């Protein structure tokens, strides 16, 4: 059974069909890319997939379970975590706390334990600290644990967002233009991080990207979107040589 299966997914905004009859199958362990020109509907697919928008038609299954129409929080708890194109960190909180918020559903104690400072509070907080530091060190952010996240440089903010998503313990990680605004060095580092996460956490990744080098470098399979519809799909090499795709990207 595929990890993620999307069928006949459509959404309309006013008269515009932003996503039309979209389908996608991602197997466990895939590193899958989604590309397409601006406004092709890539982020909209992510928003449908994570419950930010409710689709007009279509079914989304994660591990065989129908998650269509659930709330974003429920979908996250089902095992989908994401990053955002325009970084959405908890800007006033420290880097460590950003990740600890990601750990929210994996470590629990009661409200009373928090207010009364019961032993379970201290024990769980310590476990959360350890787990969060472990994740931060994967992304080379352990030295910045106490920094207010808004003060991080841009590239590190993007990494922190991935670390926070990973903290929720997802089965599927969605990355929305993870390399946007990064310089070539940072992009290179990011590619390594993504490969590392994938190997060491056994993660399935679906990413949207404009940076062709990144896509060609790490994605094995691609879906190309244009005007809300699928233009091409398949393994990366074949897709990137498709004349339709080249036309959509480079113009007539």
């Amino acid at each position, binding site marked *: 059974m595929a990890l993620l299966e999307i069928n006949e997914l459509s959404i309309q905004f006013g008269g515009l069909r932003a996503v039309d009859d979209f389908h996608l199958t991602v197997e466990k362990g895939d590193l899958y890319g989604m590309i397409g020109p601006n406004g092709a509907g890539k982020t909209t697919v992510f928003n449908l997939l994570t419950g930010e928008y409710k689709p007009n038609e279509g079914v989304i299954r994660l591990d065989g379970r129908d998650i269509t129409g659930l709330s974003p929080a429920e979908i996250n708890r089902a095992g989908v*975590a994401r990053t955002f194109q325009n970084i959405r960190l908890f800007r*006033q909180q420290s880097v460590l706390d950003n990740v600890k*918020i990601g750990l929210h559903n994996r470590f629990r104690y009661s409200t009373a334990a928090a207010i009364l400072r019961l032993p379970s509070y201290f024990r769980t907080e310590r476990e959360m600290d350890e787990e*969060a530091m472990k994740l931060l060190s994967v992304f080379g952010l352990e030295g910045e*644990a106490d920094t207010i996240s808004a003060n991080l440089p841009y590239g590190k903010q993007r990494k922190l967002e991935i670390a*926070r998503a990973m903290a929720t313990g997802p089965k599927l990680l969605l990355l929305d233009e993870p390399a946007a605004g990064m310089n070539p060095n940072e992009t290179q580092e990011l590619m390594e991080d993504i490969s590392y996460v994938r190997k060491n956490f056994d993660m399935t990744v679906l990413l949207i990207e404009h940076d062709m080098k990144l896509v060609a470098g790490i994605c094995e399979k691609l879906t190309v979107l244009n005007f809300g519809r699928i233009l091409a799909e398949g393994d990366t090499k074949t897709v990137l040589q498709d004349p339709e795709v080249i036309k959509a990207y480079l113009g007539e």
Partner: protein
Amino acid sequence: MKNSRGTMTKVSRDNLGTIIMLAVVFAAVSAARAAGLVNSHIDGLLVPICVYAIMAVSLNLVVGILGELSIGHAGFMCIGAFASAFFSKLTAESMGAFPRFLIAILIGGAVAGFFGFLIGIPVLRLNGDYLAIVTLAFGEIIKNLINVFYVGRDSRGLHFSIEGQMALGLEPDGEMIINGAQGITGTPFDSTFTVGFILLMISVIVVLNLTNSREGRAIMSIRDNRIAAGSVGIPVTRYKMLAFTISAVIAGFAGALYAHNLASLIATPARFGYNMSILFLVFVVLGGIGSTRGAIIAAVVLTLIPELLRFLSNYRMLIYSIILIVMMIVNWNPTSRAWIRRHITGRFRRGTGAGEEG
């Protein structure tokens, strides 16, 4: 190397600082009172100051930490005041002062919390200014309803009405407990500065402990970025409810303290209307939005200013308003803020800039 434990100790040191500050002020004021150095005007203000400080702590939880604007918080205080005074009035003869007041405070908190929860269910689906106006509406409705609420007691038991005193059909020796627009009179004077201080301390500890925990981080994540909070699995509505309900409970405590400091408790606009809610909001914003300590300091200073300006007689409220405007501009104008940062350091302004999205 800095590690996570470093963060925690820094935050708890800060919180400890707030608690110590309160304890020192309490000890100093108590000593001054014992030495007879506090004049009667200021002495009479001590309990109200505790009430307002507790309200500031309560509202700061919603506005500064949850990031939602509420301009109906006086409504919860009103509920707490009437619920607790009602209980004290009922049991005035049958119970000792201490257990009676303790239960009255708990009842005030519980009833206010219950209403906070109830109101929160529909209200917290809204965001921003719309949420604010609905809280204002609820505050006004509560005040309005209490003004038409009559309860009396005679040998046959309790009687309720919203028609008027006559509709209760009390026996001649019956006693009015809540008399509509005349409210409750003769609530026992149980509130003291010490009780007020203890309640303030409890509220502060509850809010600080809550803030610095898994629950608090979830609440603040909603303030910082609601969409991102949902995306990492935070049940947004649940945590909005939690913050709102706890805040209402604390407001209920403040109400109980307030009610037991008055000979007659009346739900007038001046006491429980939106003006009051707005005054609490002033404390929170002036205190730096999100800073519990700042909110308390603002509540104390703003309650004392009219008293300290008493020598100005008729001009004092005018001067007060000018001080308020000037303080806001100095505090928030980008140029003056940068100047303050540069010259007076940003040490005391930890919570600054919080809740800007709310």
